[in-house]
């Protein structure tokens, strides 16, 4: 097997292109928003009903994405859902009494967690719990309530 | 059966039985091959001459019997031991079996590169001397596809002896060659045998060439050894079978006709 420079160059170019392509896909198509976990903090919030919320759903304030849902689990004692929100560390002055609510993008779209700012001068930090929450609005339940009201 | 007299055997087969797809190839073959000589194994096509070489090198396993090379039993030894044995055996395939993606030089260098850590200058020296001895030093940078059949076989020969083996096996070295190339191969087999003092085994059905080069010949037919001797002795042999083979008679114990039913009957009946 004699190696020549042209062959080495061609193969090297191929490998390089492949690595560049992976790099392109990771950085350019995704915006890297979900990559680093180092500069972010986690807060939790309790909901009576999370509807169809899934892990990795967006967490927004004023419609701008600040982070995502990193964990959802069920509390066996209090019988409600504990949702963990991972928020980018850049947003370190969100008021501690902000309200978390589960909303739906569009009428039938995906569900996400929206934060509405409160007035507390203290900011949310790692490990805090959001007290005021508003559960998911479940379409069937609203229709059900509407029908019962009609019946009265 | 006479044995080649007064010679220490390099290869010994005893009571060898082998069958393929239920068809027996060898019933009971015993023979010995003397060290340092050129021995031919002859017989018509399809008698398993090549199979015999594959048995000797452990590529096939016999059903019964023993095969000893250099006193070492070949049947049933592990892959490692087999590979150690094969490093001391050169093998020339019928068509050379050169590696098509390597040029002539690299083909000859192949066993050295795989089995030794020799520096490039030493490999170069070895390859060039072997190529010189088969007269193809000038073709070192040609690819196998650019070689004629005879040249490919000469390269194969250079490759077979590059590791300085004690034993070289030739599988049909004369088949399909023009007279000049045949003459060249005959000369090379003789020269290599004498120069390197090794044992050569030639499997062939070319009586003329074998007579020129072999010290001893065995004739195989119907799964047995039917004769053995020097080429001159075999020529004088009176058994009808050996006569037919040695004198190229078209009919004899090996019939001209493939077994068939009655001829007039076959002509009358038109297949629908």
């Amino acid at each position, binding site marked *: *097997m004699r*190696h020549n420079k042209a*062959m*080495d160059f*061609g*193969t090297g*170019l*191929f*490998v390089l*292109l*492949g*690595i*560049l*392509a*992976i790099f*392109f*896909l*990771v950085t*350019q*198509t*995704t*915006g*890297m*928003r*979900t*990559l680093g976990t180092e500069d972010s903090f986690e807060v939790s919030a309790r909901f009576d009903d999370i509807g169809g919320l*899934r892990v*990795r759903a967006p967490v927004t304030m004023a419609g701008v*994405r600040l982070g995502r849902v990193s964990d959802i689990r069920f509390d066996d004692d209090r019988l409600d859902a504990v949702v963990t929100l991972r928020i980018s560390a850049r947003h370190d002055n969100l008021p501690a009494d902000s309200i978390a609510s589960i909303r739906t993008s569009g009428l039938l779209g995906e569900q996400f967690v929206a934060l509405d700012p409160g007035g507390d001068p203290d900011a949310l930090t790692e490990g805090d719990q959001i007290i005021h929450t508003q559960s998911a609005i479940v379409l069937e339940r609203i229709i059900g309530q509407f029908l019962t009201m009609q019946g009265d | 059966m006479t044995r080649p007299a007064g010679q220490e055997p390099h290869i010994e087969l005893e009571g060898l039985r082998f069958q393929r797809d239920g068809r027996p190839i060898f019933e009971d073959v015993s023979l010995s091959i003397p060290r340092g000589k050129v021995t031919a194994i002859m017989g018509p096509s399809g008698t398993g001459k090549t199979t015999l070489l594959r048995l000797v*090198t452990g*590529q096939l396993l016999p059903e019964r019997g023993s095969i000893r090379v250099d006193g070492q039993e070949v049947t049933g030894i592990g892959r490692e031991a*087999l*590979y*150690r044995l*094969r*490093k001391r*055996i050169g*093998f020339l*395939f*019928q*068509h050379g*079996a*050169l*590696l*098509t993606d390597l040029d002539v030089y690299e083909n000859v260098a*192949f*066993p050295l590169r*795989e*089995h030794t850590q020799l520096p490039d200058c030493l490999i170069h020296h070895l390859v060039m001397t072997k190529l010189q001895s088969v007269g193809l030093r000038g073709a070192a940078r040609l690819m196998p596809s650019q070689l004629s059949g005879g040249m490919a076989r000469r390269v194969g020969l250079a*490759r077979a002896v590059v*590791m300085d083996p004690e034993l070289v096996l030739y599988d049909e070295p004369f088949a399909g060659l023009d007279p000049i190339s045949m003459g060249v191969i005959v000369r090379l087999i003789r020269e290599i045998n004498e120069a390197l003092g090794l044992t050569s085994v030639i499997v062939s059905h070319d009586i003329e060439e074998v007579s020129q080069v072999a010290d001893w010949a065995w004739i195989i037919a119907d799964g047995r050894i039917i004769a053995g001797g020097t080429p001159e002795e075999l020529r004088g042999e009176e058994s009808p079978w050996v006569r037919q083979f040695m004198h190229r008679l078209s009919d004899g114990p090996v019939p001209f006709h493939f077994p068939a039913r009655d001829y007039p009957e076959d002509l009358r009946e038109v297949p629908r």
Partner: protein
Amino acid sequence: MRAMFRDLGEALREFVETLGAMTRFLGRLLWETPAALMRFGLVWYQLHRIGAHSLLIIGISAVFVGMVLALQGYHILNQFGATESLGVMVAMTLVRELGPVLTAVLFAGRAGTSLASEIGLMRATDQLSGMEMMAVDPVKRVIMPRFLAGVIAVPLLAAIFSALGIFGGYVVGVGLLGVDAGPFWSQMNAAVDVRTDVMSGVWKSIAFGITASLVAVYEGYNAPPTAEGVSRATTRAIVITAVAVLAINLLITAIIVGEG
């Protein structure tokens, strides 16, 4: 009727047998992998032959596929007034599905067939037995470098396919159909996730690379040493790879979607 069931049973038995034999062969190849990586020169040479030489066909196909995706996607999205999602659609389709799958199938056509026929011909011309006789294991010397080069090449080719496909989609969507470049990228950035989307594509292409390379070298190595045997092995290499890749793709997608 009975004959049909017998044929079916026979085909099934043969399928299971081939699957078993291939798995055993894969086990052997994986066992040999560390030693084969030590002789990286041989792998590098094969990477040149089967990887770099597949680059052109992969690149051209990718741009065309990206362009078609953009054209079709634009007309569907236009009905919902959502043409700015074109970038998401093109990127998601390529990264998650078409990139790995089409790359594997094209690779089987370009490199898999040539591997199978090359190895089959080496068997038919006694080159493999020749190596055996020189005490060189053909699996180590011939099969391993080709297998590993295929396993390395396919993920790289798949990434190149996806990237060039997105480029093709961009050219048609933004350049030709007038979709705004801003949302094309920003919506893509917002929707495509590194772990679930890009990495799932990478995992898929690794699985497909192993599949395509394994099938090609297996079929070549086990081809009957005749002209017909080699040509059948070549055909089988691409047919089996295509079916296997599509089936494995379904399996992996089901697992990923099921988890997400």
